[in-house]
């Protein structure tokens, strides 16, 4: 019988904290002084919480994959590689005195960076074959998309700036300066308006994502 009033009070307290924090943040954004100092303090709390969340995420990742290895689940070997890699880099950093140690830098330069770049380069194969298959859609939009992509891709190549094909570069510049710029600005404005509306709903208590 007493749980309902208690939960109502709890909801009200949460709403009050969220509203006060949001209003202080908004005022602190546009002013200097007390509210700006409060904004700095709240922002610093966010930084600490995010940093701690990263640690929790790392611990959870290792826990999940160690469990997969122990249980011998499917593809357990990859879990073993993941856990081993994470612990090895962690040990290197701890033994070397920090993340800027030369051993960690070596791992970063000769393992992480080539792997990341190689994975990203696979996009060349996927995108090229996807471009060839795009006309299967058989509509005007696909044709317009392809022709525009052709002009922009060829127009940004270095050789396209030389006569007599420099008209491709000019067309590409016009496309980027007017239609593309207008479309991107419209998207950014739309997203901003949506973010404002969502923020107002949270501040006014219509949405309470912090209680989920």
């Amino acid at each position, binding site marked *: 019988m007493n749980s309902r009033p208690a939960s109502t009070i709890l909801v009200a307290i949460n709403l009050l904290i969220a509203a006060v924090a949001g209003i202080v943040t908004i005022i602190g954004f546009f002013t200097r002084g007390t509210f700006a100092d409060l*904004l700095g303090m709240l922002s610093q709390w966010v*930084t600490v919480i995010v940093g701690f969340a990263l640690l929790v995420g790392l611990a959870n990742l290792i826990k999940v994959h160690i469990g997969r290895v122990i249980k011998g689940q499917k593809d357990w070997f990859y879990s073993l590689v993941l856990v081993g890699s994470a612990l090895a880099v962690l040990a290197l950093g701890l033994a070397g005195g920090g*993340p800027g140690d030369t051993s*960690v830098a070596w791992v970063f330069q000769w393992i992480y960076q080539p792997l990341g770049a190689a994975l990203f380069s696979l996009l060349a194969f996927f995108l*090229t*074959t996807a471009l*060839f298959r795009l006309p299967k859609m058989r509509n005007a939009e696909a044709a317009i998309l392809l022709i525009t992509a052709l002009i922009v891709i060829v127009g*940004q190549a270095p050789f396209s700036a030389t006569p007599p094909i420099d008209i491709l570069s000019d067309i590409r510049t016009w496309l980027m300066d007017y239609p593309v710029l207008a479309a991107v600005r419209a998207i*950014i404005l739309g997203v901003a308006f949506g973010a404002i509306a969502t923020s107002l709903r949270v501040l006014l208590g219509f949405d309470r994502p912090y209680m989920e």
Partner: protein
Amino acid sequence: MEITCPNCEAPNASTNRFCSKCGEPLPFDAAAPQQENSGLDLPWLQSVQDQAEKPPTEKLTGAQIKQNAATSSDPQQPQGEAAPSPAVPVEAQSQADGETDSAPASAPVDVPQGPPDEPPPGWVVSILEPAAPQPSADQQNYEPEELAHIMPWSHGTTPPEDAIAGENVPGLPPWLNNITVQETIQAAGASASPAASQPADLDDLDLEGIEPFAPPPGYEDLPAQPDPNEKVKPVEQVPEWLRSITANAPEEVAAPGSQLDSAPPSAFVPIVGGVQSEPLPISRSIPVRAPRAGAVEAITALLQPATDTKHVLTGMLPTTVSSTTEARRRSPIQWLLPDGIIYLAILASLLAILIIRPPFGEIALPASADVQDFYSQIEAVTSSKPVLVVYDWDATRSGEMTALSEAVTHHLMSRRIRFVTMSTVPQGPGFAQLVTQSVAQDTRGNYGYEYGRDYRVLGYLPGNEAALSALLNNFDESLPRDYSNSQKLDGASLIQGSTIQRIEDFGLIIALSSDEGELRGLIEQIGTRTNLPVIAAVPQALIPLVRPYQDIPMAGLEAVIGGPLQTHQYATQLRKAGRVSGSTLSDASMPDRLNAQSVASLLVGLVILAALIRLITKRALRR
């Protein structure tokens, strides 16, 4: 098993719904071999099939239940002897067998082991366990847009009073309310049995109030419109689109609606049985996204007879769950068209860049206006004020961003400008350390930069916009630790000889960003709230997203460059000004990068041209 395309006569795998060469819809091959494993890894879907194939035990008599128990406990009994068709209800089977107590046995099903990959939706739970409590709306796993696509009846304009009276399940289509899988199978079997096809058997189904299915967008715009003088068809229990799922057989396409025309108006048209469906004509190619695993189409496909299940599922479900055995059987010629040729062309381009070294990289181009603006902004910084360089790029963009970052660092060091690096992505400090060390240790440039005195690499600053806001309002306490020495620093000890108490004490912010979000946060939190100029060097693909912030008063973004071409122009500008004449940047691999970009652009352009020519040729040949 292969299917020959009726249009181009190209061989296709039996699982293909469309020709891999010309895109023509393929006819359904009824003789396609059925594989035991359909590639599904959704145990709850398998349980739906099990439930569908099980007899409706609640309707069995006591003797039948006992017989079932005895059958299930006797593993030696052959299943094929006493197992009736799973779609035929017990009552009808009993009548056909002369009231014999033949116990139906479940079909052997290989239930996948292990934890389920995805929990079943609420409406599936309601089918499997009608008595189970229904999940609330906020526990729904689907996005509203996905639900609107998968179950349009649950997002339509249906007023509540039109719903079927009874126990309405949230998210369940109206024609499925009050109907369990067992009842559906019973009704299907009853319609197949002459004795059970009387309208009296359908009284329990409550056909009143069932809404016709709303067709997908564009369907009503198609040329085939119903004749207004034609007799209105009776309300059907199963929507047309759902029955058309089974309409892959060629004979169904050839004679659409023939079964419906001959069927009694009030008869229930079963979904089990093959040719009852009225398929959409082929000319009505309505673009419909493939349903995700667990959609109502997938469930319905599992209720099909076993001979059709595999084909229907592999055609509807995403390709990731289909079998890959057909792909392995592809001949070299099939592999070459077209993917293999494209892959070989990319490989040839790479070899051409490395071996032949085309002359594209040697083209002398003047610096563009963007490059000149970027150069001028760095030139305008007074040497007494340090510069904040934000390294917000990761390994995936290292091909472009390493060259840009090195050029910027060379420029700063050649001007004897002190700088501090910082990152709002975890990978950033590592790249900052690599780039600054390599340029500072460039013996040919001999800049004489010393870590801690002339430059410093700070660590990762978590929190995105909040972290940048904290840096603006509480500089000393928000500074990340020194990345190389893991020391906690304040503004006074960042750079020797400079007291940096707030972020406005920097002379310029250079954002080396590979993501629009990080750069936007920097502009919003610092650029708009200070008078600090911000310039950005980004990958070429990011330029269209960054340009809207440029040249806007109070936004702070003064110049943007990106891509190999502008990097080359920037390096050329530095060389012309004598900034990097004696450094490694003067003989960097810029021509090779430009060669790579030129050849790749040519290749992609040729592929697009080939696709356009192919499209135009096909249309011309059809006419």
